[in-house]
């Protein structure tokens, strides 16, 4: 094949590793997803449409995508702050805080769900103070958002850290010497440099939030039309032996998630293309 000329390399095995990659991806990712689509093909178009567009399902889409988006945005902002202080400053307990960031990764989601519910329930440590203010956290959409923020944080912090470490302090000094204030140094010098990493972190946090199940089902209360997330709806349908309905909703989730991630990737490509140049 003239288009794919192989460069001689000290490490052989291009064919083997590519073959392995394709097979592995097929087994782990593509075949299960294909089965999902195949399952829905059995439905008529009308059945499919009614399964994925009933009012209850529609409400769950809004909650899932809305809460995930807000949670990812919150994580992008505050994850940036966390990553910044971990990279830029040396303070006692820094290593500990750095390790704590990973906890949402490591905890079983059910554990974090129960912990958050206990905190934010009307008689919990936080809920006790929020209830008199008229804020209902647990068993409300706010609770879903809190839980999704919790599980998404490490994605933003861990993708931003290397990018921030890579920043030259000198270019900030250069900006300052040219008369740029702190805000414009941040907006014009730091932010554009780490934007691709920030977008990646945002996308990962969003993707994780969209698929989250375990930590949300405890805190949300699972009230149809109000606090029911799409993943839960799928489980509910499965429990009612409505396999076709469940896979139909799953396909919609899959398509939507894929579209969102593709969009973010394009955005990232656009942000990165400016810097890529000839490097």
């Amino acid at each position, binding site marked *: 094949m003239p288009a794919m000329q192989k460069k001689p390399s000290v490490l052989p095995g291009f064919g083997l590793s590519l073959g392995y990659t394709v097979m592995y991806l097929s087994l782990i990712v593509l075949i299960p997803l294909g089965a999902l689509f195949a399952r829905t093909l059995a439905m008529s178009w009308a059945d499919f449409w009614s399964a994925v567009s009933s009012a209850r399902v529609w409400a769950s889409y809004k909650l899932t995508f809305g809460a995930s988006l807000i949670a990812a945005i919150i994580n992008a902002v505050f994850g940036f702050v966390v990553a910044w202080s971990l990279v830029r400053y040396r303070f006692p307990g820094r290593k500990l805080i750095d390790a704590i960031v990973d906890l949402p990764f490591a905890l079983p989601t059910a554990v974090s769900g129960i912990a958050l519910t206990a905190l934010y329930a009307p008689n919990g440590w936080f809920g006790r103070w929020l209830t008199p203010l008229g804020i209902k956290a647990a068993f409300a959409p706010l609770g879903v958002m809190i839980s999704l923020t919790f599980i998404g944080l490490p994605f933003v912090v861990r993708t931003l850290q290397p990018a921030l470490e890579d920043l030259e302090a000198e270019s900030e*000094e250069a900006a300052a010497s040219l008369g740029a204030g702190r805000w414009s140094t941040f907006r014009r*010098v730091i932010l554009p440099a780490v934007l691709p990493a920030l977008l990646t972190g945002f996308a990962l946090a969003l993707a994780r939030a969209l698929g989250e199940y375990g930590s949300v089902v405890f805190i949300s209360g699972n009230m149809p039309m109000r606090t029911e997330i799409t993943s839960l709806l799928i489980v509910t349908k499965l429990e009612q032996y409505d396999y076709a309905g469940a896979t139909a909703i799953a396909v919609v989730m899959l398509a939507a998630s894929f579209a969102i991630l593709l969009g973010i990737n394009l955005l990232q490509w656009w942000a990165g293309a400016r810097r890529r140049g000839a490097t």
Partner: protein
Amino acid sequence: MSVEVRHITKCFGSFVALDDVSLHVPTGRLAALLGPSGSGKTTLLRIIAGLEFADAGSGPVLFHDEDVAGTRVGQRRVGFVFQHYALFRHMTVFENVAFGLRVRPRRLRPPRDTIRAKVRQLLELVQLDHLASRFPSQLSGGQRQRVALARALAVEPKVLLLDEPFGALDARVRKELRLWLRRLHSELNVTSVFVTHDQDEALEVADQIVVMNRGRIEQAGTPDDVFHHPKTEFVLHFLGEVNQFHGRIGADRVHLGPIELPYEGNGHAVGSDARVFVRPHDVTIDTKTNGLPAIPAVVLRIHSAGPVVRVELRTSAGQSLVAVLSQERFDTMHLSPGNSVFVRPRHIRVFTEAQSPGVVFGDSAGGSAA
């Protein structure tokens, strides 16, 4: 705009980077801070810029007799050029140069067309107008540093500060750029201070040289001054290769192994030990003794590929020394390794243990002091 600092001290933990340093650079001068790494030269430059602040108790940083020690770098109107360029990687060359104008507060910001014209003009000045839309990663090191310089000049700095501006470039580009900087400086005439550890660069470019060592200024003066009249052994060593001998001070001469050289002592105690220094180009090699005081030596190696010929020798007392002579003279002498010759220092500088500045020029041939 003159630049002056008085009694600046700066410590990093227990390390004293600057120890009571005072310096004055008159308006329009191009000064070089010259010293080995760790001598405090970059710290001094950064304190002048406002990127670093002197310890409490230090004196003022004066720009044109106005104390700026309390103001931030952005308000000082300094152009700072970094060793590793510090260009904004996500901006084109044009945007990099325009940065200083675009970040100004709205009421001070020039209109778009003015910025464009100004950036074009600066890019022409640094001969990079054809690369305006490139990104820094697409430029060579020398080009990047010229962009950095244009960017610093865009804000019309009153003082230009350069931190090892050519340090990261290869030898040929360095040479080109330093001549170019010299020309640019005479064109713009902005007071400039640059940091370097390369004595050739400092001697060639600067009109004022400040030799620094261990957080102190060893000597400040014109290139001629510091090269020909070094006040300390450090300056003598740092500004070029030098041969060192042990000697002893006599009444009107200095004893140097088997020979004596006329020397008008200036206060060195007679009989005290002295260190005698001779630059390689101040050493004459003779194949026969001709009555003048000379030290017998053997030729070890000859490096003749270059504008001058470098000869390594060993004296009869076992000391190594280096002599440099012109190709013409070398051709008439037919030297080869192993030859026995006589070496004669023409210019010596004498320092005694007391470290007093014994800058003395003895010409052994004529016996006159310069």
